[in-house]
């Protein structure tokens, strides 16, 4: 596990929601945290290399970019989970894919440029996997604010 000191944690909590939108963002962060810009960059490069930061970039709103998405659950026999997970992952349209306990054990999210493409992928997966499937598109979005409280 990655070792984080107080300043690292402060930086991580700051850059999730309020990454400064400025041509010199790390200079602004430096002022906020009270260290030099060079040190912010050095720390953040380490955090990125070690995996604490995956990337700094846009989280796009799939609705306003014309993408259509859904959550899908599959009921897969235990001895086929790896194989079917690999099949699911082979689609670049799949963003998340998890094994969870229960009858429906493979859970993945999918977004495509249009619903035709979305349905096409679901149909291909139905054919290939031959497993019961639940298509669970969002009816209403109440929250999507992935911010982790780093304690």
């Amino acid at each position, binding site marked *: 596990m990655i070792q984080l000191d107080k300043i690292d944690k402060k930086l991580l909590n700051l850059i999730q929601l309020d990454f400064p939108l400025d041509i010199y963002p790390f200079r602004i962060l430096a002022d906020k945290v009270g260290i030099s810009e060079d040190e912010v*960059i050095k720390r*953040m490069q380490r955090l990125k290399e070690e995996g604490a930061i995956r990337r700094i970039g846009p*989280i796009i709103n799939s609705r306003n970019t014309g993408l259509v998405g859904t959550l899908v659950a599959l009921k897969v026999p235990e001895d086929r989970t790896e194989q079917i997970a690999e099949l699911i992952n082979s689609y670049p349209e799949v963003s998340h894919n998890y094994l969870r306990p229960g009858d429906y054990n493979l859970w993945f999210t999918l977004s495509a440029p249009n619903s035709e493409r979305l349905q096409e992928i679901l149909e291909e997966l139905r054919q290939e996997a031959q497993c019961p499937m639940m298509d669970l598109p969002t009816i209403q979005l109440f929250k999507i604010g992935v911010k982790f409280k780093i304690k």
Partner: protein
Amino acid sequence: MEMTEIQRQIIILTQEGIPITSSPYKDISHQLGITEEEVVKQIKLMKDLDIIRRFGASIGHRDIGITANAMCVWNVPDEDVEDVGRLMATIDDVTHCYARPRHPGWPYNIFTMVHSYTRDDCLAIAKEISKLTGIDNYKVMFSEKEFKKTGIRL
């Protein structure tokens, strides 16, 4: 909401992550033939237009010890979905909250994601949500394996 071509290009050039350097938009601005200020201005504009939900860091939450990730599913009376969904969304540890359709044999219609340091933390949070909302027909499903996790890409 229609994106302009330059906005689309900016998303494509930043979605794998901007470099951690003093001027992270320098290369992008050269590639697009606009100023760094204009790149930032367009990102702000896309945020205002809700084309971008947020611009910031995605955290490798597992790598820093936030290893428990629970999908909590709730069976909520249809007429209460709106109120209960809004209430659940106010809880800090709930990172996502959606209403989704029921299926035969699947009565759950609200989905919340809870992330925390331990499974016990997640279970305690689910219990809290249950107490707060009065919904006691629910299931907590931890992730046993992460096969894929990326952001949505254009």
